[in-house]
């Protein structure tokens, strides 16, 4: 089954070579509900540079990601920050996200999270204020998938929360 697609590198280009126009501040989070496992699977993709910036400012100027200088503590900060800034409610109730780990891919850090024992639901509310404390230009794109139904949100500092309705026929 195809998962849905993310426009991560291409939607968001951290530095324009030869066109030093304004940098785009974009992250992408995909959320998929897998009914047979009662699992809500979340992957957030964020530019490493931006993430490093915000964590250095919030926690520790020595923090470093994806370099030889990265310390175990740095992943703790990453986890703490992401779990603070990403909130998901299903049918109006906040669900606890469990941090599984992170992976680096070129310029991007991918953060894997999961909520288990999630019963089928009708609505999902996503609050994603990642990096809004770094820049007001930040946009966080959310792609959600439930069965065959896909929906997207674009969240920004003005609008950090979005509600998605999944209709009955898709279940």
């Amino acid at each position, binding site marked *: 089954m195809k998962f849905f*697609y993310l426009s991560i*590198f291409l939607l968001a280009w951290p530095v324009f070579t030869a066109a030093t126009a304004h940098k785009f501040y974009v992250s992408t989070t995909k959320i998929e509900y897998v009914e047979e496992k009662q699992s809500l699977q979340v992957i957030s993709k964020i530019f490493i540079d931006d993430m490093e910036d915000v964590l250095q400012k919030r926690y520790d100027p020595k923090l470093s990601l994806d370099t030889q200088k990265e310390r175990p503590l740095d992943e703790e900060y990453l986890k703490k920050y992401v779990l603070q800034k990403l909130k998901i409610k299903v049918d109006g109730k906040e669900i606890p996200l469990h941090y599984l780990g992170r992976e680096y891919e*070129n310029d991007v850090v991918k953060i894997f999270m999961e909520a288990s024992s999630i019963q089928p639901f009708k609505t999902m509310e996503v609050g994603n204020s990642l990096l809004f404390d770094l820049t007001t230009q930040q946009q966080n794109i959310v792609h959600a998938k439930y069965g065959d139904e896909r929906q997207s949100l674009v969240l920004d500092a003005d609008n950090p929360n979005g509600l998605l309705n999944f209709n009955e026929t898709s279940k």
Partner: protein
Amino acid sequence: MRLFKYASVVLLFFFAGTVIAQDSEDKTERKPGHYNNNRFKQLYEEFSTPNMYRSPNGAPGPNYYQQQADYKINIELDDKNARIYGEETITYTNNSPDNLEYLWVQLDQNVRAKDSKSPLIEPDGAFPAELASDFVGKYMGAGFDGGFKIDWVKDSNGNPLPHTVNRTMMRVEMPKSLKTGEKYSFSVKWWYNIPDHTIDRARSGYEVFEDGNKGYVIAQFYPRMCVYSDVEGWQNSQFWGRDEFALPFGTFDVSITVPSDHVLDATGMLQNRKEVFSKTMMDRYERAKKSYNTPVVIVTQEEAEAASKGFATTKKTWKFHADMVRDFGFATSRRFIWDMMAVKIGNRDIMAVSVYPPEGNPLWGEWSTKVVASTLKSYSRMTFDYPYHKAISVHAKNQGMEYPMICWNYGRPDKDGSYSERTKYGMFGVIIHEVGHNFFPMIVNSDERQWTWMDEGINTFVQYVAEQDFGQSYPEAIAPNKTYPSQRGPAKNIVDYMAGDQDRLAPIMTKGLNTYNFGANAYSKPATALNILRETIMGRDLFDYSFRTYAQRWMFKHPTPEDFFRTMEDASAIDLDWYWREWFYTTDYVDIGVEGVKKYYVTSKMNKEVKELIAARGMKESDLPPLVYLVEEGSEDFDEDMKSGTLNDVVTLQEYIMDNIDPLDRATLKNPKYFYEVTFEKPGGIPMPIIAEYTYSDGSKERITYPAQIWRKNDQSVGKVVASEKEIVKIVVDPDEETADIDTSNNTWPKEEKAGEFETFKNKIKGE
């Protein structure tokens, strides 16, 4: 008579499907007619008609012309106040057949003037919190006092010339119109405040180092002529900040006065090297001209750091001359290290040069000049021998910007000199890209203001080739990777973009300013489209010859997209209209898969379909010519014995062979046992070749590529019959992921469930 009957029987089977379809359609309303909407239709409507300026083969036409602008410029840098004062004389030659009543001059710095409209076209919203500095700039009217301050515009006799400034454009009104072949000279005096390029990401400006010294990377510092062409007339579309430039070629004589403790390099030949170089520098320079593998340092880190402690009040003037350039840039600071080496291109020695502050080391001293040299070799191979005498890579924080012979590049190590892989590859990539811009658009001088992809996309494509070359030339630079990890170029890296929300996509053939995802639209997608064209559609030989033809035809000229499209076809004999249409004129995407596979066995026993058909037409079996029947596995006529049967059991076939084929030739006949009807589907719009890999029961594989034209009459699905001696156990479409197929879940038969990204990660951490 007999022949006629056979033919009609065959036709009968052929049209059976159509007849049935017509029967059922009689009941529905007749569909209206339509224009030719075939995806393989020629681009007559999109392309303009060729004319005497631009030929139908994609070459410059017999009446092709271009204007010339020659500059004499005197500049002084005020390092203390970060200002530039300048005076210039422009001599403009009208080679067009038109009379020009006025001339248009670009005032690019005005994009940062206080009354600039650039911020006004960016929609925004109120945020709960703003940085104090942003707030003051946005709402309280403070901020940088940018823009050209024009002191005067005069004619060659010193009389004031009427002129009108419309934002970033200035109209110079001549006393009488300039006729074909005539020249006109005028002078301008101006000054401006240099912006700090690290704040608003200007394409030129200064950065302040920790010791208070400034590093200048200066361009768009003088009023520049607009292009007048057969396509646009005056290209005076305003500069909003993102879309780049259109500039005519000319000769530049530029004198730049800076503090005497500065070093400086620029576009063009240095005319007074002995006046501005010390004896030591001269000696080192002479050695560098003979060093082909290792850069020779002209100004060392120690010397740059020692100079950084002073602040000269005396001045030095550096004089440059450049022919056949469209622009001029320079870099200067007292805190610059300078190295260079020679690189052989054709039979000429070119100087590969790097200029960087100590902040760039150790990365820059180690790699910059080698990357420049490698880039010149790769691009020269793909296009034409680099015609200028040097190429300079200057290190400026956060910059990636190109000018003739000189460019600014990012890639800064941490303060302790360590750097991440990200920083290193960022630096390699940007140097290759910006040095590569010497070819596109500095020499193959397309209109950047209108067609961002023509310089950025084409350049990013060659960048990919040059990156792969660099990885091969310097394996130690990319270890432990075996090949250079290019981000833009490989087909599968564009998939996420192509699969994105259609409301936020624009065709490549869109003015750069109006695209949604600038990086993907103007850089990655065209680069990938050209890479796919080279590797999958045309093949390297035909592509490379045609691409070189384009570059050489338009070297030192102004090409349009059509000149490129037409040349690629004309030089290769491959009809590419469909490819340009789909990849460049639409936002469509590729998705091709296997819809289904039917397995057939051969028999001489008449099957149900034929029985029904002849019954309906009142025919008898004896009316039919000898036929071989195909029976689908699992159908009514199928029985298990057919599986063990061979072609020898089919009487009609054997009779035909005995009667018609020479005994010696009979042995060479293939003896297929398995017959498959494979149906390929195309949920995506773009027709692409179907690259099908068949795996047989003995593990052997065979790859058949059906050209894209297989889709010309049916845009949704097509069938192909595969006859083989071995059983097929697997079919994969596009097995090497070379077509940018956005959904590979339908690419395999039998269907394979692929673990998603999430499950893959979870399994990986479980295993750890």
